[in-house]
């Protein structure tokens, strides 16, 4: 682990990023807005209901909203942070030198990925106290917060790895950005659309709500999986409807881990030219 974290690329980029005062103002405003949102919501709902209390159902609603906002943040910011990591070095003509150093391709890719998602990780972790304020009011289990954070972490890593992969394979940052955002939109909106399509199709033809295909579209869609994490009952329903007992989050984890491994593998093998023409 220490070996991994003593990564030169990681150390350098983190140093650069956090030298920049913009990073801190970004963090500050994020926490500020999140704080205002949470306290505003609590105040507003308790005064509207007239009871002066913030009830567990309301607390759960706030928690769900926050969870989706953070997921959206991850989905929209990660491509921007990672899709230029390698290609921008190519464009700035610093890549050649980097590739002639003694660092392994894995080290470089790993350092690039971790350093570019580090800021987002910091945002998520520093928002944790405000986030968990909500569960003081009940309605949310601590284990739920933990599982949702693991889910965030996996999603972040996968979108990040895809960004780094496109950035390595495609020469231009702009093309890589478009591809990464495209893939992200596929995994969210397009799978969502297909899910709706296959659900309505199967209910029209078979009268039942869902087919295995629906299960597939559901399990790779982060929005749907987050819903099952928030509402564990929903997961059981899906299992009954589709006849697949495996919880969505398990399939999601397997599928996304595979994507992650594939993306990292491609990046590592394609970063440098293959010098050996006989292989």
């Amino acid at each position: 682990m220490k070996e991994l974290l003593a990564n030169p690329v990681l150390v350098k980029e983190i140093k650069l990023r956090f030298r920049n005062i913009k990073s801190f103002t970004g963090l500050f405003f994020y926490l500020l807005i999140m704080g205002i949102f949470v306290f505003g919501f609590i105040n507003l709902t308790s005064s509207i209901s007239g009871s002066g209390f913030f009830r567990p159902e309301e607390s759960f609603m706030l928690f769900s909203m926050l969870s989706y906002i953070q997921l959206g943040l991850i989905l929209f910011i990660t491509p921007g942070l990672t899709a230029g990591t390698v290609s921008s070095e190519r464009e700035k003509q610093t890549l050649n030198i980097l590739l002639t150093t003694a660092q392994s391709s894995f080290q470089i890719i790993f350092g690039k990925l971790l350093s570019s998602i580090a800021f987002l990780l910091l945002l998520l972790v520093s928002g944790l106290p405000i986030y968990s304020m909500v569960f003081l009011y009940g309605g949310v289990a601590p284990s739920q917060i933990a599982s949702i954070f693991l889910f965030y972490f996996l999603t972040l890593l996968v979108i990040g790895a895809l960004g780094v992969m496109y950035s390595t394979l495609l020469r231009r940052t702009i093309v890589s950005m478009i591809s990464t955002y495209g893939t992200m939109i596929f995994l969210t909106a397009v799978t969502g659309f297909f899910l709706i399509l296959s659900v309505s199709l199967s209910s029209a033809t078979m009268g039942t709500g869902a087919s295995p295909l629906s299960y597939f579209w559901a399990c790779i869609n982060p929005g749907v999986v987050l819903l099952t994490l928030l509402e564990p009952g929903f997961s059981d329903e899906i299992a009954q409807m589709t006849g697949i007992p495996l919880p969505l989050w398990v399939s999601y984890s397997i599928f996304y881990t595979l994507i992650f491994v594939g993306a990292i593998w491609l990046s590592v093998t394609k970063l440098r030219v293959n010098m050996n023409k006989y292989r």
Partner: protein
Amino acid sequence: MIEIKGLTKKYGSFYALKDLNLSIEEGTVFGFVGANGAGKSTTFSILATLLQPTSGEAWINGINISLHPHEVRKQIGYMPDFFGVYDQLKTEEYLDFYGASYGLDAAQRAVLIPKLLELVNLSSKRNDYVDLLSRGMKQRLCLARALIHDPKVLILDEPASGLDPRARVEMREILRELKAMGKTILISSHILPELAEMCDTLGVIDSGELIAHGSVQSIQEKLQSEKVISVKLTGDYIEAIRFFENDPLVSQITEIQDRGILQFLYKGTEHDQLDLLRKAMSAGLPILAFSEEETDLEDVFMEITKGAETL
């Protein structure tokens, strides 16, 4: 020790590099000369493990670049012809990053970096941002960077381009020091005289093919069949011109009036040359001096590349 065998790089049907064979002794400085697009950077990129050769092989200190590129990288310090630097990074941090990239620990880096900055004359800039340094300074910093892991072999692609005359002299000094430290240095340029001074051997490349290889002197001799001879005379030119015109080995006689000098191209051997002088003396020509002009390497270079073009 660098060994190159049949190295070839093709882009489509175009040969950027064609069957290059070279052997460079350990501790020597090898100069690679050629016009734009001759294939110098292509060769160096392959040696630096950045470009896959179409065919052929190369060994650096006995390590095959195709089979063990990772090991090769530890042996070489590479300076590309064009390179960028990171924004918002200070000179010291820049070197520190690359030091870490070669696995040097923090203590080693702390000792090395001031020394390297001293070597390339950038000590006063150690806290400046690299992207704000002048081009020549970046160039020197890049050389310092290439030295950080104490590589045995240096591959420098036009390290002096963009440097002012003073910095060029300084660069030459630095290279001389590095040579004294026993490093094998490959250096490219399209300016031959610049290299001739500091190189042990030269290779001249044109359109991807090595057209001459050897010591500076041997290249000059090999590539030049005619020498320029100057004759300083007092008084009568006409007779002298008539005399030299009669010799079949002489051509292109020109007079440099105001200095009283005749110049012509001479094809003969040293022996013939002696004969010519003797005959001229006995013919009673008023000769004050008879000498072979130092030929300009630049001229030789122009001649070689021109010759290759017409082939």
